[in-house]
């Protein structure tokens, strides 16, 4: 067998109470040594399950009904893993020995109870005869290989002491510890910030080239595939709809689904070219006006309860949002963007600075000077749509109760009125009024997000904060939700504060973009200007870090980066 792994006509079923679900439906895939196969698909396409079949680590409720998954072992022999017992010795030798795996969640994929060094040496002890000191040396070498700072100290650190990017590096070190011939990477950069994502992709590419490893890279992000893959398989509902070389898939996609997915990707404007101009705001008068907003959090207190260490989450931030405008607030995790939103919504009291608000009747209010009932009544003008549609809706309330709750909170008691308002809103967000009495679990992620939007619109707000509101959705769903938000904005004269870490989400949506870094606003620009001439170095870094869903451009950019690196190294 010339391939390291061959999946042939794999079929996996789940027997559920209300019927059989064909999760994987005749998948055939193969990876050669030193080849990177990108597997792209939306949630539920069966991409993760197919990868887990290689490890024979399917959920216990999954039934494999047909197919073979052959893995080449270290001695060159070939093993059909599906014929092996889940707990068999042969299987355990393949896991971690011949096939390494990296998962999506760097926060939870490492053991919270074992040090990083211990987790690596455990893998080594399972697959090698190294002595304890040799294991430790090898662990050091691996931590150095994945470019973690101070590997010696890293050995004794625990997962919770590391940042997301560092954990993912440690995870990669663990996966590579026994020189696997195949690396399974399941959305390894999805939970990371763009700049961190770029670094991790670069690391995986470098290590893959260095060790001539085969890689199966599972992702929903075409941009990531373009940066890394040699070949691409596009999956939908348990089937591979198209498999071809990287450039072929991007520049001459054959299957309609691939074409549709590619057309839906939010693209960054090319350097120099202006993005399509969003609708101009309705007026130049600011709905919200932040002046010198600062928020400190107390990290620790002394024995009298006085703050000892303070963390400045937001540092002297000022900006305005005009009526009908979409303001994109861009920043990585910990930049303070959500804290700004929470100050506006009144969830946090700012340490310093003031927030001015102008309601629909043009009356001015200074939010930071109001207290109690008056502040509570003003809250109806501000609403929020959260990131995770699964945890932001109370599972024990019907859609009618969920949407009507803000009205109830404002003192409304007429049940008929609440019901008709909920029905009206449900139609506005493109759902049927027949769904009023259903509970959230009956809805898909996209539908839930529509319910969240309807709930946010209930009190006829002036400003809606969209906190990563489409980040958790598949691209095709995200595009629909963005369209809906645009449509609602025009109809209801809404003002949006769109918080995101993902530049491509707001490229064609926001009128202006503000960039936050470590609590400070480093740049505010018109969207077009931001892309053509970013002024702050950090904005530029963000722009460069976004994976481009265009293999040729991605390669050019890599070359340019390498050249500039060599240039700077030479001079």
């Amino acid at each position: 067998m010339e391939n390291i792994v061959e999946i042939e006509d794999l079929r996996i079923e789940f027997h559920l109470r209300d019927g059989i679900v064909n999760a994987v439906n005749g998948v055939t895939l193969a990876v050669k040594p030193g080849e990177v196969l990108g597997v792209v698909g939306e949630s539920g396409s069966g991409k993760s399950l197919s990868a887990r079949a290689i490890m024979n680590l399917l959920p216990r409720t999954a039934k494999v009904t047909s197919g073979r998954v052959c893995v080449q072992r270290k001695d060159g022999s070939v093993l059909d893993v599906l014929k092996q017992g889940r707990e068999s010795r042969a299987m355990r030798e393949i896991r971690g020995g011949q096939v390494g795996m990296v998962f999506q969640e760097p926060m939870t994929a490492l053991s919270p109870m074992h040090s990083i060094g211990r987790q690596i040496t455990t893998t080594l002890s399972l697959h090698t005869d190294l002595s304890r000191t040799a294991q430790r040396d090898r662990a050091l070498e691996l931590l150095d290989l994945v470019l973690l700072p101070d590997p010696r100290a890293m050995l004794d650190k625990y997962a919770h002491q590391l940042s997301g990017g560092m954990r993912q590096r440690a995870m990669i070190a663990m996966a590579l510890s026994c020189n696997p011939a195949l690396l399974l990477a399941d959305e390894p950069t999805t939970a990371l910030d763009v700049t961190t994502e770029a670094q991790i992709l670069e690391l995986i590419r470098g290590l893959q080239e260095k060790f001539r490893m085969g890689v199966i890279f599972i992702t929903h992000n075409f941009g990531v595939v373009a940066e890394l893959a040699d070949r691409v398989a596009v999956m939908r509902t348990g089937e591979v709809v198209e498999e071809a070389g990287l450039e072929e898939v991007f520049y001459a996609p054959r299957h309609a689904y691939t074409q549709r997915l590619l057309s839906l990707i939010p693209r960054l404007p090319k350097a120099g070219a202006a993005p399509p101009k969003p609708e101009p705001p309705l007026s130049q008068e600011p709905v919200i006006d932040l002046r010198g907003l600062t928020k400190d959090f107390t990290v620790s207190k002394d024995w009298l309860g006085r703050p000892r260490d303070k963390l400045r989450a937001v540092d002297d931030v000022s900006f305005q949002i005009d009526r009908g405008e979409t303001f994109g607030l861009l920043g990585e995790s910990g930049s303070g963007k959500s804290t700004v939103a929470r100050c506006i919504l009144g969830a946090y009291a700012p340490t310093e600075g003031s927030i001015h608000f102008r309601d629909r009747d043009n009356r001015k209010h200074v939010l930071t000077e109001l207290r109690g009932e008056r502040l509570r009544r003003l809250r109806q003008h501000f609403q929020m749509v959260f990131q995770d549609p699964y945890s932001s809706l109370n599972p024990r309330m019907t859609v009618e109760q969920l949407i009507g709750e803000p009205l109830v909170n404002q003192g409304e008691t007429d049940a008929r009125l609440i019901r008709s308002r909920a029905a009206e809103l449900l139609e506005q967000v493109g759902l049927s009024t027949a769904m009023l009495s259903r509970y959230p679990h009956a809805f898909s992620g996209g539908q839930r997000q529509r319910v969240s939007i309807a709930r946010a619109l209930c009190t006829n707000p002036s400003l809606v904060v969209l906190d990563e509101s489409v980040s958790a959705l598949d691209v095709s769903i995200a595009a629909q939700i963005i369209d809906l938000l645009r449509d609602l904005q025009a109809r209801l004269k809404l003002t949006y504060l769109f918080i995101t870490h993902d530049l491509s989400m707001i490229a064609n949506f926001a009128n202006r973009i503000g960039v936050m870094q470590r609590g400070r606003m480093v740049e505010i620009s018109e969207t077009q200007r931001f892309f053509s001439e970013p002024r702050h170095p950090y904005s530029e870094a963000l722009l460069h870090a976004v994976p481009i869903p265009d293999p040729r451009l991605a390669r050019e950019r890599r070359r340019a980066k390498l050249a500039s690196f060599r240039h700077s190294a030479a001079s």
Partner: protein
Amino acid sequence: MGRLILDRILWAIPTLIAITIATFVIIQLPPGDFATAYIAELIHNGETVDDAEAARIRTEFGLDRPYPIQFFDWIGGIVLRGDFGISFDWQLPVSDLIWERLGLTLLISTLSLLLTWAIAIPIGVYSATRQYSIFDHVFTVLGFLGRGIPDFLLALILMWLGLVYFNFHVGGLHSPEFRDAPWSFAKFLDLLKHLWVPVFVLATGGAAGLLRIMRANMLEELGKPYVETAYAQGLPERRVVWGYPVRVALNPFISTVGWALPALISGDVITAVVLNLPTTGPLLLRALQNQDMYLAGGFILILSVFTIIGTLLSDILLVLTDPRIRHA
């Protein structure tokens, strides 16, 4: 880490002071005092007690002095001389009464706690790793039965079975011939013969509840990505389960192990009464009923001290077992 522990120990001091005051106030709360109860008993026995006699009794017990003086007298004795006062009811030093029973109480309770864990943890882990298997269902049914049957009822059933079928008396901790005998090997064997009944009764009740908690904790942990990572490293199932999720799932147990200490003393009074055990529970109950001030106070104080020590132990154990707390 040392700092954390020192911090906790320092906090224990003001907590203790607050508890002694609260204890004293609680004892004084019900109307009347021991003298009232004592006089009522005298009258009940046909004696006549006039006001002068009543005042004399009150003075004799020191109950006529202002509360703050009574309080400082009480607490001063404990701190300076280890003297917990005299039990009005028993006319014996409180410390003798308590310490005499504390040893056996600790023995029974510790053994039953260990047995509880030995039953609950493996079954909970098994039930979670083989969810909805036949044995999971069996253990679930047994668990709910164990939860549902009161401990004292189980004790009664055991006593009845022992008496009817084995001609074996299970009440108390010693056979009558050893009750007042000095400690010997024979007496120790006799103790063991009696000990298993209360230990078994107490442990099964506790284990039934605990195994449900362990199962739920484990189910939550087993679904986490780090478990999959451990499998993907090539670890066998036994090492994955016991080395990774069990360690995390045990945290809630460790953080409440401290509460076992006070529960050891005050808990399971009904079972102890039914089984006629010479433990502290029934003694405390009687002291409270009779307003036997110094005995009840001494008990509550010791309970509180055990609670504080237990919580401190839990904290230290957590620091030792969980790196997330050690390196917070």
